Every structure is written in C-alpha cells, then in structure tokens.
C-alpha cells in the first residue's frame, strides 16, 4: 500500500491510497482523478495513461520495459525525463509518498 500524490497541471494535488499490486493508473481511475485516460485499460497498448514521475522519484521507480519506452514515443504531451505510462508502475510499500504529475493532454 502506498499514498500516491497526483498533481494536476494547475497544481491541484490528490493524495490517493493505492493498494499493493495496483498500478498508478488504476489509483487514478478508481478514485476519480482526472487526467489519466487509460483507453486500453492497462495493456501497454494506447499511451493514454502518461504521467511525469516527480524528479525526486525517478530513480526509485522500477525502470520502464523496452516496449514501454517505445510506446512513450506515442504520448500526446511533451515527453520528459520522468515520462512513464502509469499502468506500468506497480505499487508496493517502497513507493509510499510517490508524486506524479499529470500531463496537459493524453491525446
């Protein structure tokens, strides 16, 4: 279990308790945090659950797979150092306090 903070473009913050094994994407979808579309529902197939992992957390989140890196080419907003597909970040205790920033658009 971890508390994940989703930060909207305008600065509004949402602290959400996400169970172990759920993804950062599911944490948003299941708790009404807007800004993650997740069209494909977590299949690494749509690139619409893009988020920016906060600089302080980039090194602490498991590295993206090769497929995720390829799919990140398809995100609609700027791709930055912290860009990840949130369906691919699985929650465990070590991510308690994780901060992710939501992009301006998903498509």
């Amino acid at each position, binding site marked *: 279990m971890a508390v994940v903070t989703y930060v909207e473009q305008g600065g509004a913050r949402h602290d959400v308790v996400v169970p172990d094994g759920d993804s950062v994407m599911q944490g948003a979808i299941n708790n009404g945090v807007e800004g993650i579309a997740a*069209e*494909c*529902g*977590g*299949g690494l*197939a*749509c690139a619409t659950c893009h988020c920016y992992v906060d600089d302080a957390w980039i090194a602490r989140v498991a590295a993206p797979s090769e497929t995720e890196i*390829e799919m990140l*080419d398809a995100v609609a907003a700027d791709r930055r150092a912290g860009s990840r597909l949130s369906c691919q970040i699985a929650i465990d205790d070590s991510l308690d306090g994780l901060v992710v920033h939501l992009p301006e658009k998903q498509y």
Partner: protein
Amino acid sequence: MAATSTAAPGARIPAHVPPELVYYAGITEGAEFLAAPHRFMAELHDKAPPIFFSPSEHSHAAWQLLKYDDAFFVLRHPEFFTAAGTGPFPRDPDDYWRIIPLEIEPPEHRKYRAIVDPLVSPKTIGTLEVSIRRLANELIDGFIDKGECEFAKDFGRPLPVGVFLDIMGLPRSMMDEFVRWAMGLLHAQDRAIAGEVMAEVTAYLQTVIKEKAAAPDGGAVSAIVHGRPGGEEMSSKEIFGFVFFLFIAGLDTVFATLNNIFVWLAENPDRRQEILSEPDNINNVVEELLRVFTVTFSGRTLTQDFELRGIQMKKGDRVTSILPSCNYDPDIFPDPQTVDFHRPRKPTLAFAGGVHSCMGAHLARLEIKVCIEEFLRRIPEFTLTPGTAISYWPGGVVGPKSVPLSWK
C-alpha cells in the same frame, strides 16, 4: 486521385456530399474485397480519397475514414461522433433496447463500464491463462492424430466460445448451442435465420439473467445483473442489452482473427520458424498480427455539423472508421504490408480507441498468444490442405469461412 462514382443501386447521395468524394469500394461485399480483404483494405490508401462517401458500405450510406489520425480523432470525440444507435442489429423501434456500454456515451458510460472492468482487467485475464492453455490443448488432442483439421470449426470457433462461457459464468455444455447461434446470427446471410436465432438467444439469455438474479456467482452475467451503475438498478432491457453485447462482441472477433492468422501462418513456414525461434517476442508477434489482421469497423453518427480534414459533414451523417485500413496507414506504419515482428510498438486501432475501446482486448490478446504458442509447439509444420481456396465471409467481421489445415 480520381474517385469512381460507381454507386450501388438505389443509393441516395446527400446534397452536401461533393461528387468527387463519392466512392464505392465494395468493402465487405465486393469481389475484389472478398478475394483478399486485408490486402484490399491496405491498398485502398492508393485508390480512394482518405475520406470518401460510400453509398452503401456495410449497408448504410456513410463517410468512410482510411487515416489512422482521423479514426482516432473520431473515436476520441464522442461528443461529436456518437456510437448511439449504431449497433448493427435490428431492433424493434417500439421495444428499443440499447447495446451497453457501446451505445452509452460519457459521462454515464464509465458507470456501466465499471461493472465489468474488473472482470476483463489485465490482472484478472492473466489468471485465465492456464485454463485457456488447457482448452487449446484439449482441442488439439481432438485432431492432432488425424493429420488435418478444419481450423475454423475445430479450433477457431470452440476456443473463444469455451473461454467466453467460462467468463460469463455459463456452462461449457452450452458450447454447441453457442457455436450454432454465433454462426446463425453473424454468418447466416439470411434475415429469417438470423431472426430465429435471435429469438433463441434472447430466450436463453433471459432465462440465464433470471437464474443469476436469484443465485449470484463470479461470472460476467451475474456481475451485470447485480450491477448498480451510479447506484441505480438497471432495467431488464438494460441488463439484456449489456449481456447481449458481450455475446456478439466476444465470439466472432477472436474467431475471425485466429482464422486470418492461421491462414497466414500456414502460408508462411519461415515466419512460423521465426516465431518459434524467438519465444520472448511473442507479445510483439501478437500485436503485429493484430495490426495486419484487424477484423472490425467502428460506426458513429454525427451529433452536429462538423468539418474533418476540410470536408463538411452534417449532423446525422454516419461515419465509419475502416480500422483495418487505418492500421495500414503508411504515414504511421512505414511499409505497412510488411509483417515485421520487430516494428517499434505503437498504438494500433485493432481494438478501436477512445472510451469505447474494446474491453475484451486483453482477453483477445491472451487467447491469440496462447493459440499460436500451443498450436506451433505441437504442430510446427502444417500447410493449407492442397486444393484449398480460401474464401471470406461478407459482413462486418472480416475472416475466412474455413481454414483446412494438413500436417504429417
């Protein structure tokens, strides 16, 4: 690029459609299409305008979209392009029911989709892998020693039906009935037969809905019957529309996809070898085969006048995304007709897009993966039975009628 205006008989072209954009491609029914449907849809990019107006494709006069970007735009803007009323099944206007969740748009859509999302999430679907693999092997056991099978009938049909029954919480003993219904409803090409089958399916589903209301279980029918979108009970029509939709959406698509893929595998022994030699690349194999063998179309209706790619469309116009063509868009997938298992991964339109993106996508991917793996593992060398000419079903799910395979 000259568009032909070979209009189908009786076609009415609305006054706002420029004559140069009227084009009859014969999608799902013309001889050229039926000879090699996916090559035909790939080559439409060289023949037809990127958006054209067809007098009768898929039985409705509609704008047809070939470009990947246009299709995603339409699918992602349900406020302009609604799926309401676009379901391809005849319904009595005096006793109308909506196909759910397809014909419900945001914000209500999410409440309905949430009822079944947990049953089709990647995590839940992953737990089915063992049972899908077992079913695949049972089916292979049934024909491996004969040295031949009719893949569509012996494998392509029963596998997705069996998996579907499990997910729905229906008994495997219904397999033969469901196979017959799927064929009658989707491929009979006869309205009377389709009507009779529709009545049988309706009666069965109504009975099951009653049973699950009384005795809930972990299946999808029960989840729907006991679902409370937005806290409200659904009407019996809504429950029926939801259960019926899973029935029509879940059965024919995987069937057609598997059949398309196995024709290709039979004709490409070197590519089978490539798949077998790179077992860790199987997910990319599945994704690429889904791209080149996309089987469906997405229909929408305009809620207001709208300009797309410089073309003025009117409220009430129908718009069809030719998803198989969109996945051959050369601007997105260079050298689109080449099947490349190492193509950089990009989103495809195999499962459409937007809020109505296919909810069974994870299941479909898993079924296709397991079928390729198990079939090739046990029968690595096979061909189309000599003398076979593959012919295709007309209609909105693109696939061959039969796939006779032989091996030694």
